[in-house]
């Protein structure tokens, strides 16, 4: 059968042609050495030859990785293949569920540690010493490198649900952890009676957008925030972020493909706060220039492997202050200024994303404005707190942005040294009702 031989010969030729053409093209074409947006890292650089690196195997391994990393249109190819893979199954009622079996179980109030927990009904609000001393104080870890994903950025959520093109973390909070959070703030207030202490307990998006079939099965963030409120010393200013955001939930106050709220959501929370501070309330139209970019995919796609989100990228909007300010950025380990910027608060490589404000979690930020209110604020935060600094800058003279996970110093000494008048705890409910609350305990409950 000659024609069968012909077919085989043709196919072998095609295979060889594909191999050689692709191989030669990849050798000759200009390599993509730019920041990999979808992976939030720089690609492997072309290795420099040395005999020692050759004998260790470093040179050859890095060459192999460089070959794949720097393929042109890598991000586009990745998105294309993710789009195909998003059809590997079907979803019921447009709901995609990702429930890992590593999720914490908060079915009782004992939480994770074995510290005896007092009955909440016996705890008198405002009495700092009545709160449990947490035994699992967390020690600070290394801040993420600028432009790289934050390996500490995981929350103890019950899983991820995508509903109506919006990915959300499922929430369940531990009462024991909330008590630890409240105890830390109460101790701070007790130690610094003249300080304005604010508590901003930021709900994650599942508080507003979960389908009713699921909402009843998971924690009530509004109720838990109120639980915290009832534990706090009356002098502490509890910010009702839930209500402030609830009024605007039809607006894009949360990112759909990222686990954070949007800068618009942060604005509404800060607007609510500033109305209580007596300082200038930021005006989104007058004080800020709106910027936006389409086709953005956030952390749920990049780090949480929710491939189906590639079909629904979002428009990302941020608000650049029109007023002047100076930014100083401190390395957490040396507490020395390593970067300064004038009238610039947003830094990114190629595409904007949530962590671009003040370099995200990488540095301790200090913003000095031209306000003359006599008030300065230290924001102790997790990554949710990153988004509020541009809006606080409308009214405060100085804003310090400190990540509770990376700050290694003495928080009380810091407050004293810099003449801080206001301290704001800005973190999401998954922090305030989960194990990360230990960082607050470490900083303040002493």
């Amino acid at each position, binding site marked *: *059968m000659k*024609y*069968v*031989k012909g*077919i*085989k010969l043709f*196919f*072998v030729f*095609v*295979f*060889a042609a*594909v*191999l*050689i053409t*692709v*191989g030669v093209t*990849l050798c000759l074409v200009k390599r993509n050495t730019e920041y*990999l947006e979808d*992976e939030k890292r720089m690609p*492997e650089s072309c290795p420099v030859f040395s005999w020692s690196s*050759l*004998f*260790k*195997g470093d040179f*050859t391994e890095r060459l*192999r*990785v460089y*070959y*794949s990393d720097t*393929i042109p249109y*890598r991000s586009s*190819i*990745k998105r294309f*293949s993710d789009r*195909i*893979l998003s059809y*590997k*199954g*079907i*979803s*019921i009622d447009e*709901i995609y569920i*990702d429930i*890992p*079996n*590593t*999720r914490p*179980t908060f079915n009782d109030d004992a939480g994770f540690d074995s510290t005896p927990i007092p009955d909440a009904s016996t705890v008198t609000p405002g009495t700092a010493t009545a709160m449990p001393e947490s035994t699992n104080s967390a020690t600070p870890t290394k801040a993420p490198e600028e432009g790289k994903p*934050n390996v500490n*950025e*995981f929350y*103890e959520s*019950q*899983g*991820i649900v995508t509903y109506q093109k919006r990915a959300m973390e499922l929430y369940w909070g531990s009462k024991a952890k909330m008590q630890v959070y409240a105890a830390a703030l109460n101790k701070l207030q007790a130690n610094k009676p003249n300080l304005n202490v604010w508590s901003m307990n930021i709900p994650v998006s599942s508080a507003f957008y979960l389908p009713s*079939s699921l909402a009843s*099965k998971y924690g009530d963030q509004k109720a838990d925030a109120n639980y915290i409120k009832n534990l706090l010393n009356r002098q502490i200013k509890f910010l009702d972020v839930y209500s402030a955001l609830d009024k605007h939930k039809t607006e894009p106050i949360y990112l759909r493909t990222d686990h954070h709220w949007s800068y618009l959501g942060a604005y509404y929370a800060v607007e609510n706060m500033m109305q209580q501070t007596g300082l200038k309330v930021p005006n989104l139209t007058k004080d800020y220039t709106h910027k936006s970019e389409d086709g953005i995919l956030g952390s749920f796609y*990049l*780090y949480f*492997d929710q491939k189906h989100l590639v079909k629904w990228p979002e428009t990302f909007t941020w608000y650049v202050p029109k007023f002047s300010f100076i930014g100083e950025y401190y390395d957490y380990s040396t507490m020395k200024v390593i970067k300064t910027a004038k009238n610039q608060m947003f830094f990114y490589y190629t595409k904007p994303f949530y962590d671009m404000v003040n370099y995200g979690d990488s540095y301790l930020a200090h913003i000095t404005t031209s306000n003359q209110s006599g008030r300065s604020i230290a924001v102790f935060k997790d990554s949710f707190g990153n988004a509020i600094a541009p809006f606080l800058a409308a009214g405060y003279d100085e804003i310090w942005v400190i990540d509770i996970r990376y700050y290694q110093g003495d928080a009380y000494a810091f407050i004293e040294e810099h003449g801080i008048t206001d301290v704001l705890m800005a973190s999401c409910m998954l922090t305030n009702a989960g194990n990360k609350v230990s960082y607050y305990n470490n900083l303040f409950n002493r």
Partner: protein
Amino acid sequence: MNFNDLFFIYAFLPVILIFYYLIPNIHYKNWVLIFASFIFYGWANPVMLLFLFCYSLLNYVFGRLIGRWCGKTAGKVILICSLTLNIGFLFLFKYIHFFLQTVGSICSCSFSLPKFALPLGISFFTFRVISYLLDVYWEKVETEQSFSAFLLFVSLFPCTTAGPIVRYSTIGPSIHERKIQLDDLFAGVVRFSIGLGKKVILADLLYQLTDQYLGGDVHLLTVSESWFSLLIYTLYVYFDFSGYSDMAIGLGRLFGFRFEENFRYPFVCTSISEFWQRWHISLGSFFRDYLLYVPIFGRMRRYGGLFLVWLCTGLWHGASWNYVIWGLYFGLFIFFESLLGKKRMKKIPVIIRHIYTKLIILIGFAIFYFTDLRKLGTFLSCLLGITGNGFANEFSGNMMLQNVFLVLIAIVCTFPIGVYIKEKMSRSSVWVGISCVGMSVWALFLLLFATLLLVNATNQPFLYTQF
């Protein structure tokens, strides 16, 4: 370096193929292959090349000596020395820590040895060399006189690092004389592409799914989730291993070598004995030919041999007790089936035999997965539904449906559909041509799709799976 890597497929392989086909002389072709094999083997750890070279030289000398004194006491002594050394190497690199840990836990003391790098593929090439030495001693094959030919046999890159366990009797003659026909090229290309598709498209995706269920606290799994995760894990192991074997066989064909089949659609089996005649065939046949008749159990030789084979089968897969249990687990069922006899087995309805085999295989892979025996116990409880998690929860169905097409395609691919279609089409020359075109298009599609997926292979995302 692996076969499922863009650098291998589009940089390394084309260069080697070009040089290989440009050179007409078989002797120089072999040197091209040796050179390529050394680059492939030493890619991530060049120091191991020294080990591979010295190991090959030592066993080449052993082979010559055994061949020289075959049938005499000296030959026997040298054989014993060579086997002791080869098994000793394997034991030292792969099993010493496991052994010391076990002895330590029995004697309530601890031994420690510094950890050293495991030579890549040691489990495969030691078995290949052992089979050569025994075949020389039993005069089944001629002693290899040329060191370069022997070096090629040991280091041949398609099968050195991850199998199959290719014997000298299979490829020895081809080392010295081989002709590559068009059929070899076509079959090699198709086979490689199919293997690549199995590995990259199915196995890697199934692995991610497996990890989601089994990677954390298994005590939370419902009954349906447990069985589903076991199914996808079993499919993952099959496609990962058979995919790599297919790529190895395909590459061998491209260079003119015909390796034996290593997997023959094992899930169509109707007995566990049949399963092991279809799964990792090169390993099973090695133990059958070289270990089963080791005369150390006297009258209980038959059962002793069976016990030894399955103990070694388990141990070969890993230095951990769960692998030992896994091997003996299958050995037990093969023992029962041998007691029952083939005739009685055939009388059992086919559907019952299928259910029986699939259940045993799936549970076997649960043992294979969990190196922590306590977690294994927990998981087995989840399978039986005695953990109180129920048959399913509100999410179980949704999560399974999110991957339903992947799993269904994987299940379909375990059946010999391609073989069936090819057989039917071979009856008419027109259909032969059509099947040829179909295979070609399919292979090309797999190559290109796998290439797309491999672009992301060097991405090591910080997956926030620990919510």
